[in-house]
């Protein structure tokens, strides 16, 4: 069969035309698929791991609010969990601490936080915010902690004279993960003024966070940060207020209030998380971020906290376990050390003055420079026998983690305390004051005389008084302690007594003449 002279050209033209038609019709679909592929490439997953308020808890312990049946926590179990989460997102994970990591347990306190720092260095934390309790041991020890840390310590609102930061502390760091810059800005609670001895904060100013954050956020954005994380130690309520007042914060990783935020809180578009306390939880915030739009597309909405537990089958990190074991063994050695000597048996008494009550209150006065000290008799839980006094004996005698609280009270208020004390099953032990009671007098009128430093106490005069935080909150119904002024907190009562014993040994039993009963 022979084709007409132009038939081949016609067939070719038709095929080409059909091809282009199909291509034209397919173009939107191709573009759509490419766009989706590109979009998926722009979306990345990031993981923010976080802890806060560990307070030296590196050993599992019983916390029935977290798990009624089994111990929880334990640094070696936490370490393994961190390793697993990092393995799930190796290039996209950061590990943060929102502060208050060191002060709180004998294994950490006795070594000024060294075991915790060793563990944090091993785990390669990316940043830690300064918490208020980081100041508990004074600025020299804090400096030592900061120098020992191989990770950045951040706090944007704490300044030394001249507007400088504490040496070694930065306002923020910028981390880079999967090509995304993440700014981590530290915030420390201004309430540190009220939780630390004034001597620990010499020369420091704590500025309200909303005054410093806006300019820092502008600065880090200008430096290319696509995500802004405020790493705060200020409490959930303060975090919510900060989110309302300051725009541009994508995520707040918080601490201080010891809140176990199971499902992240959203406040004014800011995601807020916090991982409870005492190393019981690891926070795992997974976010999907669009690199092209520079926007967080999604984040963990539920069950953000993972329980840390040595439950059967739980895996641990042997290197961290070794650090914990090493310091636990050293605690036993420290506890058995002799810190002083008792020249005679130091006994308690629930009614009237006791030798041990005298020593405890004298130690409180010495640690606080107060004129008068009060201690509830029931808070002294064991006698100290004659002979060498070990650190363990101090812990047994004063097992509660009480802090000293110093305040101004009037003579009239002190009189009210003394009238209540004589009626109480838990009579107050005293220092700096001499009281004569007439037990035959009616209730409310049993105090016959009170002298402070040898002079009659004046009802309208103001006296500097130290007690413990249990009484200061109205414990044993001594509500007058809640009416003080010029409050300052710290140091730990136990530390004050241990220091006193070290400095004043042998501890001699003084004649009892502070609380005198007549009739």
């Amino acid at each position, binding site marked *: 069969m022979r084709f007409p002279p132009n038939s081949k050209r016609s067939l070719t033209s038709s095929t080409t035309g059909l091809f282009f038609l199909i291509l034209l019709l397919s173009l939107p679909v191709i573009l759509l698929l490419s766009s989706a592929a590109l979009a998926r490439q722009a979306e990345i997953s990031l993981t923010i791991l976080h802890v806060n308020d560990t307070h030296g808890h590196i050993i599992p312990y019983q916390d029935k609010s977290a798990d009624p049946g089994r111990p929880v926590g334990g640094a070696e179990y936490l370490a393994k969990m961190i390793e697993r989460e990092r393995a799930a997102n190796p290039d996209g994970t950061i590990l943060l601490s929102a502060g208050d990591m060191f002060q*709180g347990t004998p294994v950490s306190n006795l070594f000024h936080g060294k075991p915790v720092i060793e563990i944090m260095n091993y785990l390669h934390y990316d940043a830690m915010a300064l918490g208020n309790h980081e100041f508990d041991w004074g600025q020299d020890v804090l400096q030592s902690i900061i120098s020992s840390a191989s990770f950045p310590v951040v706090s944007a609102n704490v300044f030394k004279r001249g507007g400088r930061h504490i040496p070694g502390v930065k306002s923020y760091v910028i981390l880079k993960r999967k090509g995304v810059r993440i700014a981590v800005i530290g915030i420390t609670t201004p309430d540190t003024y009220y939780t630390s001895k004034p001597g620990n904060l010499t020369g420091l100013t704590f500025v309200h966070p909303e005054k410093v954050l806006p300019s820092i956020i502008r600065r880090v954005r200008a430096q290319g940060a696509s995500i802004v994380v405020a790493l705060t130690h200020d409490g959930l309520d303060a975090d919510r207020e900060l989110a309302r007042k300051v725009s541009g914060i994508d995520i707040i990783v918080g601490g201080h209030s010891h*809140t176990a935020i199971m499902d992240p809180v959203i406040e004014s578009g800011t995601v807020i998380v916090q991982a409870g306390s005492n190393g019981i939880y690891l926070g795992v915030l997974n976010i999907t971020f669009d690199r092209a739009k520079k926007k967080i597309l999604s984040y963990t909405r539920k069950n953000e906290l993972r329980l840390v537990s040595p439950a059967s089958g739980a895996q641990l990190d042997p290197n961290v376990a070794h650090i914990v074991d090493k310091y636990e063994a050293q605690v036993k050695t420290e506890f058995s050390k002799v810190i002083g000597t008792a020249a005679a048996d130091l006994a308690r008494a629930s009614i009237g003055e006791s030798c041990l009550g005298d020593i405890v209150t004298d130690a409180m006065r010495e640690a606080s420079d107060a004129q008068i000290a009060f201690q509830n008799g029931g808070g002294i839980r064991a006698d100290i026998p004659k002979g060498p006094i070990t650190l363990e004996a101090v812990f047994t005698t004063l097992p509660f983690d009480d802090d000293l609280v110093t305040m101004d009270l009037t003579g009239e208020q002190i009189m009210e305390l003394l009238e209540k004390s004589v009626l109480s099953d838990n009579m107050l032990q005293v220092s700096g004051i001499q009281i004569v009671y007439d037990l035959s007098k009616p209730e409310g009128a049993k105090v016959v005389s009170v002298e402070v430093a040898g002079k009659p106490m004046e009802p309208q005069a103001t006296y500097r008084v130290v007690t413990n935080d249990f009484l200061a909150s109205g414990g044993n119904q001594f509500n007058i302690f809640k009416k003080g002024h010029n409050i300052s907190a710290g140091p730990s009562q136990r530390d004050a007594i241990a220091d006193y014993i070290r400095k004043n040994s042998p501890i001699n039993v003084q004649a009892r003449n502070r609380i005198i009963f007549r009739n």
Partner: protein
Amino acid sequence: MNENIDVYVNGQKINLYRAMKVKHALIAYDQSLYKAALAGGVRIEDENGFTIGLEGSLADGAKIFTIATG
């Protein structure tokens, strides 16, 4: 800043020194509840329903609630 704060325990107003903790609020409200919390018989929640630790700080106006765990 005021030296004192008001917090609410089970709806009851309690006045405390600033920077006092959850445990102090319990002591001021009902000492026996503090002892129960230490023993694990009570846990403390904030107004969002989140569990908070006894050593957690309190802000002015904070509302906390005691929940029996037994």
